[in-house]
Structure formats: structure tokens, C-alpha cells
């Protein structure tokens, strides 16, 4: 049921209109049905009134009844009784009673009381006092005969009984068949609904598209939003939609200018910090003490590294470096060599050629950070490459203490290091993993940390394979 519910605006609009239309048609039909029913009752009571009036005529003219002149069987005889056939426990129909009273009055006949009721099955005492049906045909039917005369003839919904009290207190009663002449409701209802719906369908679809087309382009624009985009989305659709598009355009230009400001600021920070650092780096060469000088150089390099990490992280996603297919083996070897040259223990066994479409300097930085972490916490790193489906996984394993499972995700938060102290002596900017993950995700990959069964941590750099 839920699955049938359409997802698009136009679909929902069409469905709601269809349901509402059906409901309105249903109510309409019910009212029509009610109207038709009371119409049938009026018709039946009119025949009954005529019959009584006819009987009264003859009584009034005091003419002896000629045998055979009246098709008694077909017309039904009037029932004369001391008490009304319409007893007090029956539900009376005041509207019919008023109508009958007026009809009699028009004909100059006066009754002291008139009662009318509707019954579904004919009571025994009224058998034979019935009009409005071809009773002979009805009675001659053997099935009906076997069941007595209490069953209503076909197409009969029930009977109206009109009972009128003469001035002498005697009641004249007659029953009249109420025919079923209500229309074929369900079919008509459906036919009407569908006709109206089809007529409304075209304007509805046009209206829906008028609304949904600008909505769709707005959604696409928001999804593919790139800061710095100057092209505004054209305002189209109804006024409130135009207003929304205008608001979106203003918002995106605001976002773009904020990001541009940030870029300008970062560029300035980069420039303004690098130049004095460069000056410092030159001056350090004048320091006579070798140990002291090397320490100072290391300190400057540490600052530069942190600065690079911050700037790369901030600029990521708007890198102008172009992606190239790169042999992952050579990339790993280049970085491994860097570390072995510094005296670290890093193992990598060259395997099959693996290609990935990457921005090499960025991925180098990510991998360098992972290996740097492995060496920092585990003294040695072991690198292996796996390919699964269209994913390339570069695993960096260490023999360190690993990370408690519940803390793994928080390792990616900026400026958080594995150990509780934020002691700079352990090195690193605290941005290493954050940046590595940002780089991997920028390439459509990720960084995954898992504790190895044999102990130690495995950091996996996932990249889409070329």
C-alpha cells in the first residue's frame, strides 16, 4: 500500500485529486440515491391515494358497484377496518401523509386522519389489498404461490401503506408497491469519476510540471553546488517557486563569497608565514653548534609540516591539480624510500601493477601520514596492496598497541592524537588522519582503521581502482 504511494510531487497531486474526486462523487451519488428513493415512495403513495380517492368517489356517488367493472384483482381491494392498518408501532412517513392530505383536499375529499408507512414485507392482513403490480402474473408463479403472497414481486423494494379515516371512524387502507428504480450506482459513479478525472488530468499534469520542473532543476543545482559558481539558476515557475530560487541564488553566492574569502585568507596566511619561516631557516644556518642547529631546523620543519597540513585540509576539494592514472606500486615505493632513508623500518613487497586515477601529491601525503603514524605508534610499518572489485586497498600495518574499538572513529577528529597527552615531542600535527581521510574521500575512497587479530593496527587507504 505504502509502495503504491507515488514519490513525485505530480504523482501525489494526481493521486490525491483522483481520491478526492472519487469521494466527492460517492457523496454525490449517495444524495442522488436518497433522492430517487423518496421519489419512488411518492410515486407509490400517489397511486395509493388515487385508489382510495377512486373508492371514495364511488361511495360518494352512491352508485352500486358493477361486478367486473373494476379489475379488482389487479387493482387490489380497499381494506375497510375499524382500526388503522398502520399501527402505532410502525414508523410513519409524515411527508407522505401531508402530501396525501393535500391530494385528497384538492379532490374535495376530507379525512379525519391519514397515516402512511413503509414496510419491506407485506403483512398478511394486507394481502389482496395491493396495487401497483401485475398481481396475477405474480400470483400465478408457482414458486411465489408456494411461498404465499407475502413476498414482494421482483424489482420491488417494499410497500407503502396509506390508511385514511373517514368521518364515521372507519379506516380505508391500501398498499402500493414501491419499485426499485434507482440507477446502477457503482458503474455510473465510476464512469462519471473517470470522465471528470480524464478532463482534469491534462491541466493537472501541466500544472504539476510547471511546479516540479523548476523544483527539479533547483534540486540538481543544490546537489551539484560548487562554491565559486557564478551562474545563477533561472527563476521560473509560480511566484513562490521564483522566490525560492531567488533565495537559493542569493544563498549560494553568499556561500561562494565566504569560501573565496577563506581561500584568500589562507593564501595570505600561507604566504605571510612561509616568508618569515624561510628567513628564519636561512638565519639558522649561522648557528655554530651543529646539534642546536639541527634541532632548530627540525622545529621549523615541524611548523611547516603543520602549516602544510592545515592549508591542504582547508583547500581540499578545490585543488587545481589534475588527476592522472598512477602506478600505485611506484607511489608506495617512493614514500617507503623516504622513510627508509630516515632510518625507519618500512616493508613493502612489490606486487602486480595497480593503477588508480589520483592526484598524486595528495595521495602521497595521505599515505605518508598513515606510514608516519604506524612508525610513531608501532616502530615499523608493513605495507600491502589488495584489490577487491573496483576498490584498491593499501594496508599499512603496525605492531603497536592498536586502538580501543570505541575510540577508532574519534581518531579522525582534528587535533586528536592516540595518546592522551598532547605532547609535541611525539610529533605530528594531529591533523594527519583527518587530512588523510579527507584526501581519500575527495578521491571517492576512505581510510579505515581496524585492530589486527595478531595485534597492532591496520590503516587501510581505499581508492577507486582505475
Amino acid at each position, binding site marked *: 500500500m505504502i509502495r503504491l504511494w507515488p514519490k513525485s510531487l505530480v504523482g501525489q497531486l494526481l493521486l490525491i485529486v483522483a481520491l478526492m474526486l472519487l469521494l466527492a462523487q460517492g457523496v454525490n451519488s449517495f444524495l442522488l440515491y436518497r433522492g430517487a428513493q423518496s421519489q419512488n415512495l411518492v410515486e407509490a403513495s400517489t397511486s395509493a391515494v388515487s385508489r382510495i380517492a377512486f373508492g371514495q368517489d364511488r361511495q360518494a356517488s352512491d352508485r352500486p358497484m358493477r361486478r367486473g367493472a373494476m379489475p379488482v384483482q389487479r387493482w387490489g381491494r380497499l381494506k375497510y377496518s375499524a382500526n388503522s392498518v398502520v399501527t402505532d408501532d410502525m414508523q410513519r412517513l409524515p411527508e407522505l401523509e401531508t402530501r396525501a392530505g393535500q391530494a385528497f383536499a384538492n379532490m374535495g375529499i376530507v379525512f379525519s386522519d391519514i397515516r402512511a408507512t413503509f414496510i419491506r414485507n407485506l403483512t398478511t392482513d394486507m394481502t389482496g389489498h395491493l396495487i401497483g403490480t401485475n398481481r396475477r402474473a405474480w400470483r400465478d408463479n408457482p414458486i411465489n404461490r408456494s411461498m404465499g403472497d407475502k413476498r414482494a414481486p421482483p424489482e420491488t423494494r417494499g410497500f407503502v401503506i396509506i390508511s385514511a379515516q373517514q368521518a364515521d371512524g372507519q379506516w380505508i387502507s391500501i398498499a402500493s408497491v414501491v419499485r426499485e428504480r434507482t440507477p446502477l450506482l457503482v458503474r455510473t459513479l465510476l464512469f462519471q469519476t473517470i470522465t471528470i478525472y480524464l478532463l482534469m488530468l491534462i491541466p493537472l499534469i501541466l500544472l504539476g510540471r510547471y511546479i516540479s520542473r523548476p523544483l527539479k532543476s533547483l534540486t540538481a543545482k543544490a546537489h551539484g553546488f560548487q562554491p565559486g559558481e557564478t551562474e545563477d539558476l533561472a527563476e521560473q515557475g509560480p511566484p513562490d517557486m521564483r522566490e525560492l530560487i531567488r533565495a537559493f541564488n542569493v544563498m549560494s553566492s553568499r556561500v561562494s563569497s565566504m569560501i573565496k574569502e577563506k581561500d584568500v585568507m589562507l*593564501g595570505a596566511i*600561507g*604566504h605571510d608565514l*612561509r*616568508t*618569515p*619561516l*624561510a*628567513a*628564519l*631557516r*636561512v*638565519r639558522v*644556518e*649561522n648557528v655554530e653548534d651543529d646539534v642546536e642547529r639541527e634541532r632548530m*631546523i627540525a622545529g*621549523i620543519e615541524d611548523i*611547516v609540516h603543520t602549516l*602544510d597540513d592545515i*592549508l591542504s585540509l582547508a583547500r581540499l576539494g578545490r*585543488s*587545481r*591539480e589534475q588527476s*592522472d*592514472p*598512477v*602506478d600505485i606500486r*611506484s*607511489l608506495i*615505493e*617512493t614514500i617507503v*624510500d*623516504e622513510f627508509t632513508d630516515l632510518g625507519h623500518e618500512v616493508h613493502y613487497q*612489490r606486487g602486480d*601493477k595497480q*593503477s588508480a586515477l589520483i592526484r*598524486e*601529491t595528495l595521495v*602521497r601525503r595521505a599515505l605518508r601520514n598513515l606510514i608516519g603514524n604506524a612508525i610513531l605508534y608501532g616502530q615499523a610499518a608493513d605495507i600491502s596492496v589488495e584489490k577487491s572489485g573496483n576498490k584498491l586497498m593499501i594496508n599499512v600495518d603496525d605492531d603497536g598497541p592498536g586502538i580501543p574499538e570505541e575510540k577508532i572513529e574519534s581518531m579522525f577528529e582534528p587535533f586528536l592524537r592516540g595518546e592522551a597527552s598532547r605532547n609535541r615531542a611525539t610529533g605530528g600535527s594531529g591533523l594527519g588522519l583527518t587530512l588523510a581521510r579527507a584526501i581519500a574521500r575527495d578521491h571517492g575512497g576512505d581510510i579505515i582503521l581496524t585492530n589486527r587479530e595478531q595485534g597492532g593496527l591496520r590503516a587501510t587507504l581505499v581508492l577507486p581502482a582505475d
Partner: protein
Amino acid sequence: MTHKIHILLVDDEASLRQPLAEYLIKQGYKVQQASDASVARSLLNAYDFDIILLDVMMPGEDGLSLCRFVTDKTDIPVIFISARTEETERIIGLELGADDYVTKPFSPRELVARIKVVLRRAEKSGTKQISTSGAAYQFSGWTLKCDKRSLIDADGLNISLSTGEYQMLLALVSRAGKVLNRDQLLDITQGREAHAFDRAVDNQISRLRRKIESDPKNPEIIKTVWGGGYVLAGEVKSL
């Protein structure tokens, strides 16, 4: 050599320019300082320089534009000094005809080494444009592109090289068929002389072989000449 190497140092930041000039003078160079492009232009008219160290970002006329002027009118090699680290910046600089590119902050020793490399290259070739901007070489199915410092295999796949490996390969490729000993290679690539038991060259060569030879144990591209050094075998096409 009686002639002192004459350097033009162009940087708007006096805080960097002055100590750097002092350092270079201490290393035995003659240095003129310019705080912007117009000063640099007048100095260029007045003196004969051997090399220019040029800051990219300067108020007024920037380093890129001055570099274009210098490479168009003269044969003086240019080394860019930039605060920008992006790869594209470096490529633009090299495309404009700069011979090398260092990013701030740099090690002054490395800068001196690079000055030596650039000068040696210019001296050897007579004209300075031998192996940099826009140049590319093809050898044994490989392509070495100098502007992006990239090595591309027969399938179009980029092979990652360290700076040292790139320099070494470029030295061998641009002098294909010529046997180069360790001293020469160190001189070309790093502007320094080998100390005793220096394994740096052999190390780079074996790493290069691992990346480009189909069988690094029996090299067919970079061959060892016993008692001599290394040579790049096979035909090299300069593009």
C-alpha cells in the same frame, strides 16, 4: 676559477632577502639585491648575471612576468622562490622558462646545490634550455615529461618518482649513450661532490631500475659500466 658567480636576488621581503644574500656571499657568491621588478630590470641592464633567484609573488610586476622578460631577452637561468606549494604553481613557473623552483621555507644548502645544478646545466649546454620547460624524452617505451616531472609507461600510466630519482633519470636520459661516473652524476643532480663510500648514486640507480626495468637484476635501460659508471642504453627521442 677567478670569476665569482654573480647572483641577482629579487624578493620584496627584506627579512628574507638580506639574510639569504649574506648566506650566499658567505658561500662565495657575488650577490645583488632587488626589492622589486623595476629595480631588478635596472640591475639587469647594469650587470652581467650568471643566475637569478626570483620571488613569484611581489607587489607591482610579479615574478612570473619578470621571468618571461628574462627568458625572452637573455640566457640567464632563473630559479623561482615561491610561498605557494601547489603543483600547478610549479608547473606554471617551469613552463615560463624557469630552470628550477623552490618553495619557502627552503634549506639554504639545498638552494646552493640547486644553483650549482642549474649553472652546470647551462654551462654544459652553452644555452641554458636543455632539459626543462616543455621538453619530453622518449626511451624504450617510456616518456619522461620535464614540465610535470612525470614518467609515463607504455600504457599511459604515471610512475611516481622521488625528486632525486627524477633528477638522476633526467641526467641519464638527456645524456643518453654517454657514460657518467658517480661524481658526474652527483654533480649534475645535486651540485655536490661525492665523499668517500658515497652510496647515494648507486641507491638512486637501483631504485630507478626497480621502477623501470622489467628485470632489475639484468638491467637493459640503465646499464652499469664496470669501473666507469652508468649509461642509458637504447635510443632516446627528444620531443
